């Protein structure tokens, strides 16, 4: 039958039909979304730390959606999967609802009981006061991750401490920042200052952009792909980025330094490097040239398993497109314990290509000169975080979280109290679990400020429920970026349950500790308004627009031939690092063989999955629906050997006999036969996380071989191997 006629027929009969209205009540055709009363409130996403700006939409008083702010450089109006699912953080039924205080239950067991804010805050203030009196205020550390921690930094600065440690350092970007500081006198920063949309060649070493969903990176990489960029991905796994690459180099895990040295060898021996750039800006080239001469591609082949010709070809490809060639520095860089050196090699390679400060390489960031709200001077703390490091990690520029934890164990430990804000320590720091238990025994006070009953809350004396980012003000986002810009996070909803914003909690504690002068305002919005007025805006305006971009005042790239002084001792880009040499480290990157893989064991590879951020979103009811568990990727050869198939449940056992939670197998050709891969963040044990608990396995539990970077203390996580323990039927039941 003719289609047009068909429509007519059904149309006519439908129109002719009269329907008793009683049948229609209760379920008439649904109204279309957005037909009700809609409001939009600016926010800055807090589902990860890329800090995209957007608007929270509410329809008829019901949360509706979050959409990126078109003016925002971090998102270009498009949030990532997790940011779009951000409402789930607010809607999560398992959120912490009121303060909880550790106490002894009727049968002698320790339990948490609900407490009023007054009581909980009084307990904390009293104990903090006692620590300050007995040991000194510098003995309280803040372990934190996220923008909201700024309120507690203000509190602790006023109190007299300066140990603020984030896992985004020693478990993440630390080696990269230190390596780039050593080389260029400044770090890469966040958002990473990669100029990918202008790159003609991009080299990803590990960086699994695409699964790593840092929004701006994903977007600029895609623009580059559309422009026909030559993408070279070095990854032992067929990552999403690898699937988009011209050249995928399935490197033997842990041998990247060998590849980097060989690439430098080719660039120098074939005279392909940017001679003018190196001559003008860099020092130590001769030493470098002499050093890398020993490492031709033929040598690297034996280490990396990559054909010498492929190494040469890719090196030439990089040179051909230089300086618009970006060798991406990666972000989560704590791999094998030689991470600062690997990152140094990347920094040096970029110098040879002349990409630092050049279009398509690394741009120069600029942020808004935003004055701080006037506060009295903070007292000088009695000690710095360096106490925690002792003689170790000379190049650490921030407190190393694992060192802070070590310095909290035992009666004579330096630290006596912790505030833990927005970091799930047991799942975040490899091998930390036994230490956390010991630290919990030693410390006089552990306060956990969180939104969820995450595993870390189990160590707390007092748990304080913060409201989510959708229910609060935080400091303005003033990130160094392509263009200076400010973005506002403000409450879209009233805090649910008895949760409170971080600024309120910090201020309450401040007042109880006699530090009210550091909180000379009633509501944090006053601080924001004051700051905004200093730069020609106001809270009112920002509540309307959410994001304000400012014109750049300085150039985004080096000007042609421009003289430049780098913030290094020599004032040059330091290919050869005298500073490293002085402290007994290799002044030029040296290849170190990774740990050998025992028979029938596999490299434990891990990374991100697009739907989740670490362990913080796995209970988010929206994102849960995208990916409720992680799966264990294994190659079909491994599957055959172990008689496993997709969907089977297995446990892993690592080289130290630690057995993982049960995880479902995914047989895929995207991983080689020497490794297994899983996304980080699953395998929660906290029962109160009702959606996620017990689903999937936790990579960090298997990371008992922690490869500490001697230069700056980062915890290398990739030296672990696993074998399989098949679940028997009973175990599974």
């Amino acid at each position, binding site marked *: 039958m003719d289609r047009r006629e068909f429509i007519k027929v059904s149309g006519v009969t439908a129109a002719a039909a009269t329907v008793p209205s009683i049948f229609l009540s209760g379920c008439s055709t649904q109204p279309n979304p957005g037909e009700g009363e809609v409001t939009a409130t600016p926010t800055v996403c807090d589902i990860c730390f890329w800090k995209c700006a957007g608007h929270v939409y509410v329809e008829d008083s019901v949360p509706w959606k979050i959409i990126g702010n078109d003016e925002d450089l971090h998102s270009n109006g498009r949030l990532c999967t997790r940011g779009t699912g951000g409402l789930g953080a607010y809607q999560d039924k398992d959120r912490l609802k009121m303060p909880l205080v550790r106490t002894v239950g009727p049968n002698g067991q320790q339990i948490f009981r609900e407490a009023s804010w007054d009581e909980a805050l009084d307990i904390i203030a009293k104990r903090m006061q006692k620590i300050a009196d007995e040991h000194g205020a510098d003995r309280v550390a803040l372990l934190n991750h996220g923008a909201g921690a700024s309120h507690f930094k203000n509190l602790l600065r006023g109190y007299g401490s300066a140990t603020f440690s984030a896992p985004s350092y020693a478990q993440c970007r630390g080696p990269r920042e230190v390596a780039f500081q050593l080389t260029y006198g400044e770090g890469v920063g966040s958002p990473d200052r990669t100029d990918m949309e202008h790159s003609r060649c991009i080299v990803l070493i590990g960086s699994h952009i695409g699964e790593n969903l840092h929004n701006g990176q994903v977007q600029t990489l895609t623009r580059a792909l559309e422009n026909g960029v030559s993408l070279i991905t070095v990854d032992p796994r067929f990552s999403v980025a690898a699937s988009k690459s011209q050249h995928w180099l399935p490197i033997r895990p842990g041998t990247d330094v060998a590849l980097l040295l060989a690439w430098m060898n080719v660039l120098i021996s074939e005279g392909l490097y940017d001679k003018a750039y190196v001559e003008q800006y860099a020092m130590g080239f001769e030493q470098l040239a002499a050093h890398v001469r020993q490492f031709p591609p033929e040598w690297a082949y034996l280490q990396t398993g990559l054909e010498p010709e492929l190494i040469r070809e890719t090196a030439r490809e990089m040179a051909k497109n230089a300086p618009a060639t970006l060798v991406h520095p990666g972000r989560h860089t704590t791999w094998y314990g030689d991470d600062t050196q690997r990152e140094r090699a990347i920094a040096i390679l970029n110098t040879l290509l002349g990409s630092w400060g050049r279009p398509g390489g690394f741009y120069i960031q600029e942020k808004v000169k935003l004055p701080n709200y006037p506060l009295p001077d903070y007292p000088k703390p009695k000690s710095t975080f360096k106490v925690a490091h002792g003689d170790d990690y000379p190049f650490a520029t921030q407190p190393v979280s694992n060192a802070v934890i070590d310095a909290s164990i035992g009666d004579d430990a330096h630290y006596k109290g912790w505030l833990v804000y927005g970091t799930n320590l047991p799942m975040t720091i490899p091998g930390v679990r036994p230490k956390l238990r010991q630290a919990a025994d030693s410390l006089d006070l552990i306060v956990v400020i969180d939104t969820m009953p995450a595993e870390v809350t189990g160590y707390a004396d007092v748990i304080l429920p913060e409201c989510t980012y959708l229910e609060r003000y935080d400091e303005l986002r003033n990130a160094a970026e392509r263009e200076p810009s400010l973005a506002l996070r403000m409450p879209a909803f009233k805090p649910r349950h008895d949760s409170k914003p971080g600024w309120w909690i910090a201020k309450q504690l401040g007042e109880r500790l006699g530090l009210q002068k550091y909180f000379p305002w009633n509501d944090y919005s006053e601080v924001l308004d004051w700051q905004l007025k200093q730069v020609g805006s106001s809270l009112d305006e920002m509540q309307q627009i959410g994001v304000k971009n400012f014109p750049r005042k300085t150039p985004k790239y080096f000007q042609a031939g421009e003289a430049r002084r780098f913030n290094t001792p020599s004032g040059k880009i330091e290919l050869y690092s005298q500073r490293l040499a002085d402290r007994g480290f290799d002044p030029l990157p040296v290849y170190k063989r990774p740990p050998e893989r025992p028979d029938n064991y596999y490299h434990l590879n891990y990374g991100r999955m697009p739907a989740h951020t670490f362990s913080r979103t796995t209970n988010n009811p929206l994102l849960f629906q995208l990916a409720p568990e992680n799966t264990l990727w294994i190659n079909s050869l491994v599957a055959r050997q172990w008689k496993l198939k997709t969907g089977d449940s297995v446990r892993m056992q690592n080289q130290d006999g630690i057995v993982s939670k049960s995880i479902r197998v995914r047989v*895929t050709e995207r991983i080689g036969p020497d490794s297994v891969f899983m996304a980080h963040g699953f395998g929660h044990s906290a029962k109160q996380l009702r959606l996620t608990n017990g689903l999937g396995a936790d990579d960090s539990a298997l990371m008992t071989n922690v490869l500490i970077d001697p230069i700056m203390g980062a915890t290398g996580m990739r030296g672990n191997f696993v074998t399989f323990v098949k679940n028997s039927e009973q175990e599974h039941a």
Partner: protein
Amino acid sequence: MIEEILITARHNPKIDPILGIWTWEISVYLFLGGLTAGIIFFVALMNLLEKNDTYNFSANRLALWAPIVLSIGMTTLFLDLEHKLYVFRFYTTLEPTSPMSWGAWVLIIIYPISILQILSTFRVGYPVLSGWLEKIPFASKLVDLSERYIKVISWIAIPSAIALGIYTGVLLSAFNARPFWNTGLLGPLFLISGMSTAAAFTVLFARSHEERRLFTRYDLGLIGIEIILVVLLLINLATGTEQQLKALEFLTTGGGYAVAFWGAFFFMGLIVPLFVEFIDLVQENRTLAILGPLLVLLGGYMLRHITVNLGQETSWQNYGTEYSVEALERVNKIYKHGLN
């Protein structure tokens, strides 16, 4: 070259890993619909042949069963609807391209025909009941009338019954999205199977020895045709699309259906009754006379059951699911009433 396809984020427990929208309600309905068609057919046939005296059950008493059986089927069909209040929507339109829409109207037509069949045979078939019936005003007039036009009624009933019988198969075969259903043989197969079950039903309940023998003979013939149709169906699948080949494999060798198909349907529902009824015809064994028809009825149901289920398992797309459905179910429990 292998192709793995993994779905992320669909999470539709009624689709993944296989379509599971229709269960026993539909199988029962299709079975009873076919049985009804057969009943109406045989009632009409017996009346056209004027066998009211020789074959009392089929000619005079059987008609009463049609609306009863059909109503049970309609009830299970109704149970399957998810938007039950809106069932009337079947009758606010006729969608010419939708067998289901046609079917809905056929069902509506079947009822009056069936009632007329009952009325026209009621006095003979159920003298006591008809005594009561005729106390109702106009009732005896109606019965008179129906009796007078019994031939006309029968002539209308036969094509209606065939339409109903075929429709139960066409309903499924119209879904070209489900390779196993998408064959022209389902209509005839379901029709013949429906008639076979009605014959078996008659054998079970008829008192007269003669009548039982006649219907056993009918049934043997129908079973024979059915076996041929089944073989044709298998050949049809074997020469069909890739998806149909897969369905064939699922039905006959691999998959979870081989036992049900060969064992419960083909062997127990066709071959064994063929023998049993044949022996019964020759030896007149009372036990076998019950066993045979019972197996036919069972086989008739198994045919619908297998067809409905296997059809849903065959699909153009065969995506694997990366995540376990049980894991996903958690969110339905905890957020039963929505996220907000």
